[in-house]
């Protein structure tokens, strides 16, 4: 089915999320929609899926103009969408999930639920495209990659001929990404049109037939998959960008931060962090890599004291932290950049100035006894925002008026404003634009060069490879292995993220390169990126 968007405009108040966007997707092609976070990709797709009503413009399917009052209309017209975070009920089986929303019922007055036909449908689609999904498996027991296939089956079961995949690889390991790419190619062969939303240059080049780049709500250009990553990046950002982090080799000093045999239990009593040990020296960056949900979050929270450690020791400069309150750990010299900035990092209704003292408000010079000094808080905010180049109109505005990148700079400015022994940052560049990512990375390396021990928890392999001096890979709560960044390559790390021990991963990686690893090699020969 041919999909055409003509002059789609969508505004939210004064924000123009989509500005006269034209897009033509030919039948049976994989069309990548590339753009930074906040560029307007998701808004556009939500318009297409009937979630938003456009303020202007037209949607045409096979040259026929259509209007959607809701996702129901879009689904009926043959559009399917796989959201970045899946819309599945954990305790349902695959067949039940697929039936949900248009449950097949038996004919006759009783109208009983007919799961048999749903099961049949799942099996049919699964076999046709080589999905390998059991209709009777319970969703919560399936790996993420398979859950994603369930979402795709859901769309196909409703006869989707245009499939929108919104950031589908965000939660996948590189190997799972490979499998997804294979599935996308199968679907393409069968004539399904695919719109693939992403901001990852590598994937676009590996899979797309055509690429449309969106910046600030406007289409800024089309590109072919033969374009280099640097070309795509500059098109996406609007200027030349350096994808590599400029850093000197680490100059590691004495061991500063030691985790010994640390275990953390989930509320249900299972070990989410399982006997993890590592040492970080002053002046080096240890990246904790892994697919989201393998215990990294809990590890970081346990280090700060937000969740109790069930077992093991946490040592900073030789002194035990495990029994200290969060406040005392911060005072001992831990700088903490939380994974979820908007939930844990800032109070969104507070002013920028208040957020800049969120963990310093009761210490001199901001407070004397029980009284705070608004003037000092204000002055501090002026200094910090200037130093960290935070773009804002007034430090007394709520931080919710700032973009994600600027809010993250506020968090970083706060944490780096006191003398640190350990900087612990989780997903420090999640949701940021390329310019902010450069800035955050540079500040992290600067902090390292001051002799601070740095731990970065990241699920983005690009970030890990850019920042790390050493990489610890976590899988199901354990550290699979720790490798020097010099020896770490994408394929080996990818296999380790799936739980393969280091040595095996090395052997397997040498036998077979993943397609993204190959893209890596070609990219390397093209322009020395990564």
């Amino acid at each position: 089915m041919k999909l055409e968007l003509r002059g789609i405009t969508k505004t939210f108040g004064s924000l123009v999320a989509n500005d006269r966007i034209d897009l033509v997707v030919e039948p049976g092609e994989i069309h990548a929609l590339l753009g930074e976070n906040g560029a307007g990709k998701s808004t556009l797709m939500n318009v297409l899926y009937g979630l938003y009503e456009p303020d202007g413009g037209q949607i045409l399917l096979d040259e026929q103009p259509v209007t959607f009052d809701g996702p129901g209309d879009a689904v009926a017209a043959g559009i399917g969408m796989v959201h970045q975070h899946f819309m599945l009920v954990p305790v349902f089986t695959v067949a039940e999930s697929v039936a949900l929303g248009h449950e097949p019922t038996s004919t006759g007055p009783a109208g009983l639920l007919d799961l048999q036909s749903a099961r049949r449908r799942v099996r049919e689609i699964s076999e046709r495209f080589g999905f390998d999904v059991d209709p009777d498996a319970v969703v919560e027991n399936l790996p993420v990659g398979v859950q994603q296939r369930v979402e795709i089956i859901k769309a196909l079961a409703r006869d989707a001929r245009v499939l929108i995949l919104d950031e589908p690889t965000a939660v996948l390991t590189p190997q799972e990404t490979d499998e997804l790419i294979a599935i996308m190619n199968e679907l393409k062969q069968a004539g399904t049109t695919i719109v693939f939303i992403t901001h990852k240059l590598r994937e676009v080049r590996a899979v797309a037939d055509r690429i449309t780049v969106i910046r600030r709500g406007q289409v800024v250009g089309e590109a072919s998959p033969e374009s280099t990553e640097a070309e795509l990046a500059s098109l996406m950002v609007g200027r030349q960008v350096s994808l590599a982090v400029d850093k000197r080799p680490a100059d590691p000093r004495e061991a500063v931060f030691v985790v010994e045999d640390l275990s953390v239990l989930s509320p249900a009593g299972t070990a989410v962090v399982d006997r993890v040990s590592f040492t970080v020296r002053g002046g080096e960056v240890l990246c904790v890599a892994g697919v989201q949900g393998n215990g990294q979050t809990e590890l970081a929270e346990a280090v700060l004291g937000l969740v109790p450690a069930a077992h093991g020791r946490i040592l900073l400069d030789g002194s035990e932290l495990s029994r200290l309150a969060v406040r005392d750990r911060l005072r001992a010299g831990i700088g903490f950049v939380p994974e979820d900035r908007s939930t844990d990092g800032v109070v969104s209704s507070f002013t920028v100035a208040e957020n800049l003292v969120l963990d310093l408000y009761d210490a001199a010079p901001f407070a004397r006894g029980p009284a705070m000094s608004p003037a000092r808080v204000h002055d501090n905010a002026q200094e910090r925002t200037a130093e960290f180049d935070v773009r804002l109109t007034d430090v007394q505005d709520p931080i919710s008026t700032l973009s994600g990148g600027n809010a993250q700079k506020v968090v970083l400015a706060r944490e780096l404003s006191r003398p640190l022994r350990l900087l612990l940052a989780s997903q420090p560049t999640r949701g940021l634009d390329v310019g902010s990512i450069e800035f955050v990375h540079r500040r992290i390396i600067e902090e390292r060069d001051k002799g601070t021990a740095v731990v970065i928890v990241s699920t983005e392999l690009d970030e890990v490879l850019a920042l790390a001096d050493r990489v610890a890979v976590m899988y199901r709560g354990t550290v699979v292995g720790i490798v020097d960044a010099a020896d770490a390559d994408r394929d080996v790390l990818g296999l380790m993220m799936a739980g393969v021990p280091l040595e095996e991963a090395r052997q397997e990686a040498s036998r077979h390169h993943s397609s993204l690893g190959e893209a890596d090699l070609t990219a390397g020969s093209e322009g020395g990126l990564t």
Partner: protein
Amino acid sequence: MSSQGTGPDTDQDTRSAPQPARGGDVLREIVTGNAVISVLAVVVAMAVGGVLIAVADSGVRGSSTYFFARPGDTLVAAWRAVSGAYVAMFRGSVYDWQAATFAAQVKPLTESVVYAIPLILAGLGVAIAFRAGLFNIGAQGQIIVGAIVASYVGFAWDLPVVLHLLLAVLGGLLAGALYGAIPGILKGRTGAHEVIVTIMLNYIALYFISWILKQQAFNPGRTGQRSPAVEGSATYPLLVPDLLVPGNSFRLHAGLLVAILATVFTWWLLERSTLGFEIRAVGANQHAARTAGMSVARTLALTMAIAGGMAGLAATAQVLGTERSLTAGVAASIGFDAITVALLGRSRPLGTFLAGLLFGALKAGGFLMQSVTATPIDIVLVVQSVIVLLIAAPPLVRSIFRLPAPPARRRRRPRAARPAGGPSQEVTAP
């Protein structure tokens, strides 16, 4: 549920998009929305009250039987009824130009203030709790407990003039604070919901006061449900001195100064103190507060103690100011009206002060309105209820007055769902 804005790589623009507000956001808007809505809510409530006054008026009903023949009669009668009632209310609450002496002319205003004092104090208690994200339904119980202790100190102890009052006030304050701290501590330690705990504590206080009024210490003469009168040394001094006014009948007492001081203190606490910073941070985002090293449990307990202390002060205005003895009905409905006062005042100290004055005026004016125009005083209750209703539904007020919607705030994003198969068994976004 839609999928917007959940994960690491979602476009930010979906966050600023209009989407149904979550429960916490709704409560926050109700509790701390803007002052315009408050003022308009009062206007609408008065209009609704006016309609009811007209409907209840016998003259209007009489003329409405021939409405289609002479609609003018009905409208004139309605205008007379409504304006008469509200004019009487104004005379009873602010300034009575028909009274003979100047003293009698301004007395209604002082009466309004007398009714307002406990409402302001208890309202501040509710407002402080709101700012920490706590719904303090327990002002009623905290007032009762504060009143028991303040009155006991007032009538049973024999102390020098200034000290006696100070100790009685302090007793009320501490008793209220301790009683208020209970739900705060339980919430911080065990997560017990403060609404349920405070409601239950209200019942406990209610039955406790009935019981204690039957005890020898509080009821030595077995005369009934009233304690001995509070000693003169423990009462709030009257603010209008006898020598100024012949036949002084002004009840305005120094509790007003306490209310003003408490309002200023609350402002300082919330806007200028480290504890206030913690209260606001915990109220706005507990996760961020905890991550920044604040002790959420401690903050919740302290907040509720301060809230209870304010209610205890409200109790002293009753037992040491206007009533001057303890009765089972000492708290009247102050503890519940205080919730409305805090809501109308948007949990801001000055707003709560003004809202308390308004409610005091409604109460004082209601009496004269009833006696002069035979309009039932229940109209006041209706007006108060409509105010609550409108404040709880800001979009309704906005649509009545065609106000623009507030700028879409960026919503907190829920935590990203974790994939299955890993150690965490949470699976997908619901």
